[in-house]
């Protein structure tokens, strides 16, 4: 067996087990920790595909920023058992349905994926300099538009946070 394949399988098993852990653990802090582990396993997958910049950005943004925000939210919430709201059956049912729809979307997208792209041959497109070239030549309009998106997100965050 190819060594890349071995590492792929190890990482895939870790990612899946941790993802299951996110859903099943009772303590939300444990969920967050499992999610961080999942992100690390996925970052390992990116590294295997030689998408180095993506891998490290995945760690910095998801594990280092968004998960910190999640932890803040969980810590700032009232976490005592007696105040925990009882989720109604309807909410659970809606959760299952929406999760299932997302699964169908992901499966449909994967079905169309070209297996030739996953030949295991490492390309250099994921290196930061090549990525920057593409980003600042071909994708310059989406890039500038993303800054507008950030602006709107900031306005939204401030409006919600400073309501009173």
């Amino acid at each position, binding site marked *: 067996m190819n060594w890349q394949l071995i590492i792929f399988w190890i990482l895939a098993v870790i990612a899946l087990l941790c993802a299951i852990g996110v859903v099943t653990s009772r303590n939300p*802090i444990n969920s967050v920790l499992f999610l961080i582990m999942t992100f690390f396993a996925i970052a390992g997958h990116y590294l295997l595909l030689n998408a180095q910049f993506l891998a490290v950005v995945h760690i910095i943004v998801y594990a280092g920023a968004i998960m910190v925000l999640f*932890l803040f939210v969980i810590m700032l919430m009232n976490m005592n058992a007696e105040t925990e709201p009882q989720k109604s059956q309807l909410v659970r049912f809606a959760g299952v349905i929406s999760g299932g729809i997302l699964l169908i979307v992901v499966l449909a997208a994967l079905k169309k994926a070209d297996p030739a792209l996953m030949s295991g041959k490492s390309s250099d497109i994921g290196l930061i300099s090549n990525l920057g070239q593409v980003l600042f030549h071909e994708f310059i309009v989406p890039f500038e538009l993303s800054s507008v998106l950030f602006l709107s997100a900031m306005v939204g965050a401030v409006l919600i946070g400073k309501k009173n």
Partner: protein
Amino acid sequence: MILQIGTYLLVEKFILISIVLAISLLVAMYSTYAERKVAAVIQDRRGPNRAGPFGILQPLADGAKLFFKEEIIPSHSTRFLFILGPSLAMLTACMTGAVIPWGDSLHLGGHVVPLQVADVNIGILFIFGVVSLGVYGIMIGAWASNNKFSLLGGIRAASQIISYELAMGLSLIALLMLTGSLSLNDIVRQQHGFWKNGYFTWNFFRQPIGFLIFLVCAFAECNRTPFDLAECENELVNGYHTEYSSMKLGFYLFAEYVNMFISSAVMATLFFGGFNFPFMDHLGLSANWITILGVVALFVKTGFFIFLFMWVRWTIPRFRYDQLMKLGWKMLIPLALLNMVVTGGAALFFNH
């Protein structure tokens, strides 16, 4: 490809990593001693002088004491997370050293041994990634303690660290525009020697503002005075490690010193030429000797920054929390952005 790595490389990297970890811990240990001695000098005292000559064995005594102290896990705490917190803090502190070039290559009997654990393409971003994970050790430990002081200290520390991470990331952009690489090895090699083509080669002389912002952020990231609001004893007892004892407390304190050592080394590497030193090409020594002298030069620079950390600690009083946030968000971030735009414009203007 795995066969190409070979046992030789494995052994080499194993030894190198052991040395890097051992030196990080040793320097951190003796930083505690140095801190007490520096404090003593500044306050006109003697400092520790009982354990061994000049108290040189004091860090060993402290370490042994921490090992033999009773381990207390409060009954209302979350047990697993309580242990995980300091472990994560120490783990992240140990990981940053992997991408720092501690020296040039050594030539040992036909083998070229680079004194850097991993020369990765995105070295600086790796450091940022590890630093951004450092928040977890503090937050998890603070939350698991189930203590009001700990939680306040942990939230304060986390807010502070993430705020200064932004300014830290921005302050380096201007430097990276000039170097064009994120690999620390490349950045050090570009600063070869000290003087070339009528100007200094070290990045500090091209990016003084960037360095100052980075320095301030490094202080804040390490939770050092004047930014040690996470553990200010007059408000929060001991901040996030109030409930900790024995080596778990030791890990939190120790991680701070390891972080201080690593951030000093990063500053020396990025802005002060790393293992380069003046007249390195004119000494007429063999390559191995230059490499060894280079390692010594890096440690001298690092030692200076560690001293600076201590000097500031015993000189400047602590900020108030709103002042701290104001400095980070309203001064350092705009300043770093401005520095970036001005550097970019100037570099393009003078190149054309």
